[in-house]
């Protein structure tokens, strides 16, 4: 990958946490445009906390976050979205009593131009034809995999330059895990920059260009996706090895 230009997302030595204790200590990572980066690690590594700090749900006690050349450290979440970051939270958060279409429209809440919304909708439907088929279906009646698709689709409605995915395959059966990774692959093919926190490290590293391995709130390893996937040290880490 031609890596001369500035990374799209730069997280520099952030420390952050909930309350008095910092869960993250001095964590750094970066993601280039069109790059898929996986953030993996055993439980308690603070992976989701990294995404929450980037998105502004938490303010870091130390460190900086830059996106697209702009300093976004501690910026309010809705501003972070406006700057071009999309966020797909953990757990397939959809509005169960609204239709697929309504859910997507909710995703475009910050977009004032209705024509832009229509364009985004068309693009999302093109990317995920299954959502087009089910546009009038109530989100609560869809399968886990479809709900995740909808959640991702909704994040696309603001035309982000980059998407943060928080544990997209969590709690899904193997069949739906396949479905979700196909969706992520589709995004990758379209050239979307992605930072993905995943519990299923093997799958995440398979699809990612690069990966960061966190342990107990700190950077532990970093490397090409394929390298990390076969690195015995990484695998053993999960069982306290």
């Amino acid at each position, binding site marked *: 990958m031609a890596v001369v230009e500035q990374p799209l997302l730069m997280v520099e030595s952030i420390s952050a946490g909930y309350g008095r*204790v910092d869960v993250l200590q001095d964590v750094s990572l970066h993601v280039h445009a069109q790059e898929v980066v996986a953030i993996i690690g*055993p439980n308690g590594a603070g992976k989701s906390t990294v995404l929450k700090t980037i998105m502004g749900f938490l303010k870091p006690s130390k460190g900086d976050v830059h996106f697209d050349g702009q300093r976004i450290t501690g910026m309010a979440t809705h501003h972070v979205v406006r700057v071009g970051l999309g966020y797909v939270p953990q757990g397939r958060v959809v509005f169960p009593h609204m239709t697929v279409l309504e859910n997507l429209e909710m995703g475009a809440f910050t977009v004032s131009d209705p024509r832009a919304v229509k364009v985004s909708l068309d693009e999302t439907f093109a990317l995920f034809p299954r959502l087009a088929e089910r546009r009038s279906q109530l989100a609560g009646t869809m399968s886990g995999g479809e709900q995740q698709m909808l959640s991702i689709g909704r994040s696309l409605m603001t035309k982000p330059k980059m998407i943060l995915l928080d544990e997209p395959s969590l709690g899904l059966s193997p069949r739906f895990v396949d479905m979700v990774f196909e969706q992520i*692959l589709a995004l990758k093919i379209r050239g979307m920059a992605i930072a993905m926190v995943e519990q299923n490290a093997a799958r995440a590293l*398979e699809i990612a*260009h690069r990966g960061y391995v966190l342990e107990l709130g700190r950077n532990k390893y970093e490397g090409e996706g394929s390298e990390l996937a076969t690195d015995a040290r990484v*695998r053993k880490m999960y069982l306290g090895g």
Partner: protein
Amino acid sequence: MSSILEVEGLKVSFGGLTAVNGLSFAITEGSITGLIGPNGSGKTTAFNLISGVIKPDAGRVVLNGRNVAGWAPHRITAQGLARTYQISRVFGQMTVWENMMVAAGRATHPPAERARLLLERVNLYDHRDAMGADLSYGQAKLLEIVRSLMLEPKLLLLDEPFAGVNPTMGQTVLAILHELHAEGLTILVVDHAMSIIMNLCERLLVMDMGALIADGPSTQIQQNEEVIEAYFGRRGAKLVEAAAGATNSDGEA
């Protein structure tokens, strides 16, 4: 050594999702066992089934020879089981002392004496008049543990006692558990703090997708490929080809 707890074919589903699917294992009296597994493997659900918080769809939970599957929690507790929760459920509008007193049932020792001794072990006796709501995270965890000991259980289920706890507090919790084990209490622990669990527990039960995938000494489990795969994840077969073909995986545009 007899089995204090025998779980046989335990099964429960919520809607379309089978959270626990034919779980079976036995716990020897006086042992300290760890129950581990990736997120969503059904560990907490298993605890909830054993302690009566949820009723199973099928299977047996044999505690001291009696099948308590489906019993109300307070009756299972009366049979000698106590448990703690992932997020400590200490009674906020009561003092530390009152928290201990409310657990004291028809205990053999005078409850006040027992409570004092237990609180002193975890350095909470001096805080006995503090309200539950004012305790720190770690203190609440310790209180929940000693409070459960007021019930004089024979089997203690601990749900993530090390979660979110700083290293110093973790040492205190570890020390208490070692002591209790030495005193003959049977302990079953769920936690994600791998290195601690590996050291603390003689034996590990590993769950994935609602069932047991491994059962053995910690050192063996650490090398077990299937267990590693359960945590690390399995690669998707067709995805590998698709990824290789469809994208410029080294990024050349």
